[in-house]
């Protein structure tokens, strides 16, 4: 094998590592926000992702039937719509279900799990029991060739870009806006926040909706790389939890670091060993690290 080929392989493998990192980060962000700020373990996270994916599918159907000329451009607005649809559903769920259970964390776990089953059956019964696929625009299909021997997946670049945007957005919102201040104040001391005039109920609703919206956004983006079906969301849930636990809850930097290290370990090991072995070794490492640091990678005393 020539040096050139080795170089191309290193480049492509490097990209798959980064791509996996952004995928993991995007799935985990929504969960991290809801868990970190509210202490609610949202077991229906995967189904909110599925809502996003189905929104893109429905938008694609509408475009096909009513405005076939828009095929190349519908995708980006559809992703935005997915955010709002998932956020709206999240808002309703908070009002109807979650807020009655804030004092009983284990019950929220069960309630959201039940919710996830109900949502899966809803997709099955009212949308389609079979998997569906949104028609993707040409510019998201295939590979981008910087040199003849290197192929970089276009959908990977798209997900990467989106993740950077969303992370930056979350960062600004949390640490540089009044909303962020209110959310963080409520997290730190609910009673005091309430006493100084913050409407903590509203903050909760907003935070939960935001987390669900980001899940929807992730689901929408993943239509380019994965399946859209009633149980698609559940394919992501284990990895999502893993990232959040390993990163240490309540910390954006932790989530990023955790997604990065898991992704790199996973993709490198997978390249040199088999994928089952890679999974075993990654999980084993995480378990050992969590035994030493039960609080996760990052729970520094200094607030970031």
């Amino acid at each position, binding site marked *: 094998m020539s040096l050139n080929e080795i170089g191309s392989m290193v480049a*492509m*493998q490097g990209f*798959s*590592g980064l*791509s*996996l990192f952004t*995928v993991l980060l995007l799935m985990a962000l929504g969960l991290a926000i809801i868990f970190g700020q509210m*202490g609610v*373990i949202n*077991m229906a996270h995967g189904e909110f992702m599925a809502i996003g994916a189905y929104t893109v599918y429905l938008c694609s159907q509408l475009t096909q039937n009513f405005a076939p000329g828009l095929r190349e451009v519908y995708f980006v607005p559809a992703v935005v719509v997915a955010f709002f649809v998932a956020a709206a559903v999240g808002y309703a769920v908070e009002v109807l279900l979650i807020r009655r259970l804030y004092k009983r*964390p*284990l019950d929220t776990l069960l309630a959201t*799990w039940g919710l996830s089953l*109900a949502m899966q*059956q809803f997709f*099955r*019964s009212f949308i389609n*029991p*079979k*998997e*569906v*696929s949104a028609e993707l625009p040409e510019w998201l*299909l*295939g*590979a981008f060739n910087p040199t003849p021997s290197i192929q970089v*997946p276009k*959908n990977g670049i798209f997900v990467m870009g989106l993740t950077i945007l969303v992370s930056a957005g979350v960062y600004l919102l949390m640490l540089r806006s009044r909303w962020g201040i209110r959310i963080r104040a409520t*997290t730190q001391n609910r009673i005091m926040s309430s006493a100084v005039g913050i409407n903590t109920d509203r903050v909760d609703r907003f935070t939960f909706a935001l987390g669900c919206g980001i899940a929807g956004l992730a689901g929408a983006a*993943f239509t*380019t*790389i*994965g*399946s859209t*079906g*009633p149980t698609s969301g*559940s*394919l*992501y*849930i*284990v990895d999502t*939890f*893993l990232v959040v*636990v390993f990163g240490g*809850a*309540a910390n954006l930097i932790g989530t990023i670091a955790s997604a990065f290290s898991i992704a790199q370990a*996973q*993709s*490198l090991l*997978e*390249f040199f060993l088999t*994928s*089952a072995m*890679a*999974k075993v070794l990654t999980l084993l490492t995480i378990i050992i690290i*969590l035994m030493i640091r*039960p*609080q*996760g990678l990052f*729970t520094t005393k200094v*607030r970031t």
Partner: protein
Amino acid sequence: MQLVSTHRNRALRGALALVTSGALLCAAATLSGCNKSSAAATGDPGASKTEKLSAAPAATERSTEASGAAVLTPPGLEKSTAKASDFPTAKIMTTGLKVDDDSVTVGILHSTTGTMAISETGSVQAEKLAIAQINALGGILGRQIKVIQEDGASDWPTFAEKARKLLVNDKVAAVMGCWTSASRKAVLPVFEKENGLLYYPTFYEGLEQSKNVFYTGQEATQQILASLDWVNKEKKAKSFYLIGSDYIWPRTSMKIARKHIENVLKGTVVGEEFAPLGNTQFGSIINKIKLKKPDVIFAAVVGGSNVAWFKQLNAAGVTAANQTLLTISVTEDEVLGIGGENLVGFFSSMKYFQSLDNPNNKSFVEAFKKMWGEKSVIGDVTQAGYLGPWIWKAAVEKAGSFDVDKVVAASPGIEIKIAPEGYVKVHENHHLWSKARIGKAKADGQFEVVHESDLIEPNPFPKGYQ
């Protein structure tokens, strides 16, 4: 903040343990013999039992018996003139089955809820179509077929429970049902104990044969050997990269494929990879394949993973233009989820494709779409499901009895000449003689049949391939 988050992380780890163990449980159930399940990390399978919604809302509500009059029937078959009075109930049924002077009851046992509903819906539709057609043509021995449908809910113990209910309480004369190997393994002891009759439609890994089961799909050798021979001859393929999901069906299939490639075709296997069920990221695996540059990728990835695999393959620049790919896990049903544009030019090995050009299939597709909607697609397993009631009918008429022992004894040698796949014959080992076909995927989700083998003898226990 510090305190809170540490405390929370503990709770979250609990949740993680819960999801993972759910996933493991499910995976374990799957590994114990599940064919082509799309089930992966879905948590506790038992929970789906209480879900109570029908999978094909408008469609399944329709009564099979009632639609009998309107259904299109296969060409060349005349309405039967057999009268029930010619076959007194006391003579044709001696074992307490639910047969009376004008009707006979059969069971349909598939998942219409839970993860497997995705796949099993097509089988239910095909079986109901066949039964409606048989009824329209005068039924069996002058009796109309009534159907009791039960939902296995994608949960293997539920399958066993419902099978017992159908056999013991309802006394059905035969059951069309099951899809995954895991569900079949779960009901097998019930059928053997109660001496029931099961028609099982899915292509599967073989290594099984029971007096009480007829396997209307292909066993592994029927699907794999002919297709490898073809790709070796047509594409001069010598080096193969094998990839599948990590459970029994792909593993058994790949074992057979490897033996055949190495011993018969004198080729090489340059890589073999099993991705965990539910795996959604194939970047590294695809890079490995690029590194090895195999002549052929031989794939058996299933479920949601299958979609991710093909989408990411296409995105990594691997297309039919630069790579031959042969898969044994993509039918027209799977294309719906994967998207035709990601498959164009790849090859699939099945015994049936919706595009098959023969009069039987033309009429079958027409009747299917009339009953279940213009947009229906028909995959390999759906067609195999359609064969079940016809094979049972032929065997009952040959035996002149509904008694299970007599039907089983009469079955070997039964020929179905109206089979959409062309022609099938029941072998003594309860599997079917059938042809293997290679389809080339088109962008519209259909396949162009590029190769058809001779009739292949079923061989569920292949020697030299274990």
